[in-house]
């Protein structure tokens, strides 16, 4: 998968992202990772991707999501990373905004 180079449309921080209908997120002990499941397929998510996906309840807006992650991981300035991830996830069809 090539890296995106074109500037994407800015994500509205008031929107509440949710996982697309066909996908299921779950923690897999044997793999020690979060995975996204869909008809006959599986995507293994890295640590931060999993942490973001598991917080997408369709009720929390992007701004609040970023704030929660910054708090939970005692790390400032996660905005760029989270927005980058959401763009990818949206492009892959995993997430609806």
């Amino acid at each position, binding site marked *: *998968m*090539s*890296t*995106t*180079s074109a500037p994407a449309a800015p994500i509205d921080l008031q929107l509440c992202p949710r996982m697309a*209908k*066909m996908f*299921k997120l*779950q923690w*897999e002990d*044997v*793999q020690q990772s979060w*995975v*996204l*499941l*869909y*008809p*006959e*397929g*599986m*995507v*293994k*998510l*890295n640590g*931060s*991707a999993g942490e973001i996906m598991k917080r997408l309840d369709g009720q929390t807006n992007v701004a609040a999501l970023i704030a929660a992650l910054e708090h939970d991981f005692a790390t400032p300035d996660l905005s*760029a*990373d989270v927005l*980058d*991830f959401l*763009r*990818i*996830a949206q*492009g*892959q069809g995993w997430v609806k905004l």
Partner: protein
Amino acid sequence: MGQAMSASDVSSSALPATSVNPIGPPFWLLAEITYKCPLHCVFCYNPVDFAQAGPELSTDDWLLVLREARAAGSVQCGFSGGEPLVRDDLEVLVAEAHRLGFYTNLLTSGVGLTEARAATLEAAGLDHIQLSFQDSTKELNDFLTHTKTFDLKRKTAAIIKAHGWPMVMNCVIHRLNIDYIEQIIDLAVELGAEYLELANSQYYSWAQLNRDHLLPSREQLERAERITNDYRARLGDTLKIFFVVPDYYETRPKKCMNGWGNVFLTVTPEGLALPCHTAKMLKDITFPNVREMSIYDIWYQSDAFNRYRGNAWMKEPCRTCPDQEKDHGGCRCQAHMLSGDAANADPVCDKSPEHHRVLTAVAYAQIPDDQRTMIKPLVFRDAMRSHQLSNPVLK
């Protein structure tokens, strides 16, 4: 300004182990719960001798398989057959698979999927139904021209949608229907499918018996691909279409099942654990039965599953081929069927000394139907024919 992330930075698809890394879990469990089926598809990949199979696993046997496989790390579970709806304990199995945390897939013709069964399957937690259509070549023309069978599919599709499942449709494509690809795609659109897999038949089992009837010409394939691309451009995201080309038209083989004993584990109706649907044809391998060996031991310890892992078993040209990690020399079953030795390169590969066998079949496929000399008639899958073919009468 940092470099933008890519999808591969955040994810990886179901992880195959390579010959360098240790064996990974059996992520994909295919539960073939019965060979019984109301259809007679000429491209069926159930073994030709299916009618001679031993007794079916019981409900309890299957529940144990599900538990053991899940504990070993299986995540995707497909219920298939034959026609899985024939078994009335399907809901019990789906419920247990769901409870265990599997993502559950029902691979079905839809025959027997009444509203009542759809409701119980939904209650059991079934995640997805893959509906095949244009099932049997016996009904080929009927299907495309008569409303009766189409109405049945329309009803089944409506049931699936009403229960909130994604509509995933699968149509086996072959010489006898490839020229109707527009109608097939139109039907998928009308039925509201979200995914359509146009899977060109692979030539195993019954499909191998019928291969000369089923292999399309190059011209037919190119036309079908063009039309598919036109539809893709027009339909955009409303219908995702997958088009799978028959590997006889390639010069490098597929990485069959992502490698022997790498990701897939199939359990047959009689309880044999196989690395793929057709491996039972390899008569010099003793495949373990789940009644006698645990899934964990089968996957990691059995001779059968270790047989073609790694690269040590490879002969030339695979042994020193730079593409060996890409495709593992292709399909063992195809190497066996076409060259007599499962350890040979899959003759689809143009580096294989047996590649001419594939070219001969492809050459025959270019001959228009009306110019062909009489070839053996289509063989329809059924139990009686299976018995006959398993016990050839000696003159």
